[in-house]
């Protein structure tokens, strides 16, 4: 056991999977000598050499498109996209190719690749370094979408993602890269993709979130004197409705928290499904606390945009008394 940050937990998972399986290779911008702009791949170039930790040209579509080829040939590429704002140029290769290859070839060709992407706001970064596009990829069949909210989960989920026979987008909430530490086992372990985590149990209400927002939810719940169940989705696609349903049938009240814009965000899907699965149990409308339907503002105003403890608390109170 070591007390690790989320960045360190990811780095450890990468090291261990690369040691174990030489089909695993890393490629991306500045992932080599520089160890990534967030130092997530620190030390890997030295340890595994330039053939396995590859500084690529500055071209996101190229990074993902060649990874599709590498994966079809049987390797397990782990491409990094430097910031979620630069997924845009790779959108087509992700959604038109990686996501479709297995089904369009009826399994003849597959794409076991894990796309690592720092995600989300709150670090005073420049434009396009603070977005939350998880809904886009959740709406795209053929992908799995994962976002850890703690160092322990980060390691276990990344190992699962790398070993998964299908393409996984592994979002790394950069706001909590180094925000806190947690005991992380040295040995390898996996956390199943598709299973949410009940962070805290409670009776009166269910709060659902993922990524960095889980931390805000925890502090809002701490401040409240109600008995609140907190679910960290961990996997955004597929959605673990079983865990959600069990909780909502118990509590009858739900608040969903995410950073992405509200309209057509993942919160909408959760809300719709909760109605579909738990209609007769709901005592209040499912409430969403989200980013606004605006462009993520530059950093002077970013804290106005991001769901904060105050807004979450407010929602909890409103839902509680509905």
């Amino acid at each position, binding site marked *: 056991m070591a007390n690790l940050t989320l960045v360190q937990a990811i780095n450890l998972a990468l090291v261990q999977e690369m040691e174990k399986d030489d089909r695993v*290779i890393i490629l991306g911008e500045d992932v080599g000598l520089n160890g990534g702009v967030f130092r997530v791949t620190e030390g890997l170039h030295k340890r595994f050499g330039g*053939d396995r930790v*590859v500084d*690529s*040209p500055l*071209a996101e*579509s*190229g990074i993902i*498109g*060649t*990874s*599709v*080829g*590498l*994966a*079809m*040939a*049987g*390797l397990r*590429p782990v491409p990094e996209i430097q910031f979620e704002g630069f997924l845009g*140029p790779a959108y*087509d*290769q992700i959604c*038109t*190719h990686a996501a479709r290859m*297995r*089904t*369009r*070839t*009826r*399994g*003849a*060709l*597959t794409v076991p690749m894990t796309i690592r992407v720092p995600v989300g706001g709150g670090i005073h970064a420049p434009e396009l370094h603070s977005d939350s596009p998880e809904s886009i990829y959740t709406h795209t*069949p*053929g992908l*799995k979408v994962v976002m850890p909210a703690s160092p322990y989960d980060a390691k276990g989920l990344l190992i699962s993602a790398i070993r*998964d*026979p*299908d393409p996984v987008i592994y979002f790394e909430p950069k706001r909590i890269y180094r925000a806190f530490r947690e005991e992380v086992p040295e040995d390898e372990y996996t956390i199943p993709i*598709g299973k949410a985590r009940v962070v805290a149990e409670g009776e009166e209400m269910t709060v659902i979130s993922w990524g960095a927002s889980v931390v805000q939810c925890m502090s809002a719940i701490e401040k409240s004197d109600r008995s609140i169940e907190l679910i960290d989705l961990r996997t955004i696609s*597929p*959605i673990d*409705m*079983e865990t959600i349903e069990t909780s909502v049938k118990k509590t009858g009240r739900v608040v969903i928290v995410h950073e992405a814009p509200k309209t057509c965000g993942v919160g909408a899907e959760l809300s*719709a*499904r909760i109605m*579909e*699965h738990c*209609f*007769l149990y709901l005592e209040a409308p499912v409430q969403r606390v989200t980013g606004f339907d605006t462009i993520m503002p530059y950093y002077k105003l970013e804290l106005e945009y991001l769901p904060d403890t105050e807004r979450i608390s407010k929602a909890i109170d409103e839902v509680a008394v509905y």
Partner: protein
Amino acid sequence: MPITKAFTTEIDYVSILDEHGNFDAQLGSDLISNDELVQLYEQMLTSRRFDEVAFKLQRSGRMGTYPQNMGQEATSLGAAFALEPHDWLVPCYRENTGLFHRGLPMEYILLHWMGDERGNQIPRELFMTPLAIPIGTQMLHATGLAWASKYRGESNIACTFFGDGATSEGDFHEAMNFAANLDIPVIFFCQNNHWAISVPGHIQCSAPTVAQRGVAYGMDCVQCDGNDIFAVTKVVKDAAQRARDNNRPTFIEAVTYRLGDHTTADDARRYRDEEEVEMWKTRDPMIRMRDHLKSLNLWNDSKEAAATEKAETLVAEAVKRAEEIAEQPVSEIFDSMYNTIDDPEMIRQRQTMRTSSIGQDPTQVESTEQVN
């Protein structure tokens, strides 16, 4: 300091058997044996027959949109011939001739255009990716496939095919650039057939040659007569050697022409002159090849008749296999989505797809009065 030269270059044009029947014996003599020549010609003939039949299948409603290969047979065929059987072929959609040469059963192509994914379920040992519908995107996959070979120390390389139009896409550039800078053993084979649907070549590339696209990357690049199977064979062999020996990619522009419409959904008379088509008909790679075979006394009318009949049979059998394939179970829409289908929502969608709307949770439906 006066102005100095930072860079100079020149690009070769390779032609061995031209449309007038001139044959450059020095370049061409050891490239293709007589037996091989005959086989290649027969394969062209089969491919052209396939085109005719596919066209009729579309017109009679037995198949969807189909893009003919007619006029471009020498390009993919020469390339497939010049490569090893374990080299990856990464096609666009106008390379049937080469794919058939490699051994792809013809019904795969038919199934694809009949709207059946099993046309893409290509056996691994053929080292071939399925037809690529989105233009310009598959070169990156070829680059990745070749990269994987290099990474593993394997000897196979990749060759990817695309049109003149495809060279306008950003992904083309990124693939060329990755390959050149990371030393990846891949061949970029551009079939410059002068048109991208209705858009003429100079809108895609107004430079004197498309071949010079490769100069941007410091890549070896060459232009050849794409209707000359000798020239195609030579440039691909040379490229393959560079790739195998030094992990160097090559960009090939094969100059050819699409004799038919873009697809069965197109009517080329709307946008191009009949004279242009007529001129290119005289450069038809099949005529040239046949005349050459005859000049070598390898071919005559009775061989032509026999080969035609054989081609007809082969194609007819393939059509039969395609049309008589077992119906695809509807659940296939779901079954190949992931390695394992374990998401309860997806399982539920699969189970209820024909009998219920999908938003409803069945446990709730049961708890209320049922209709139907």
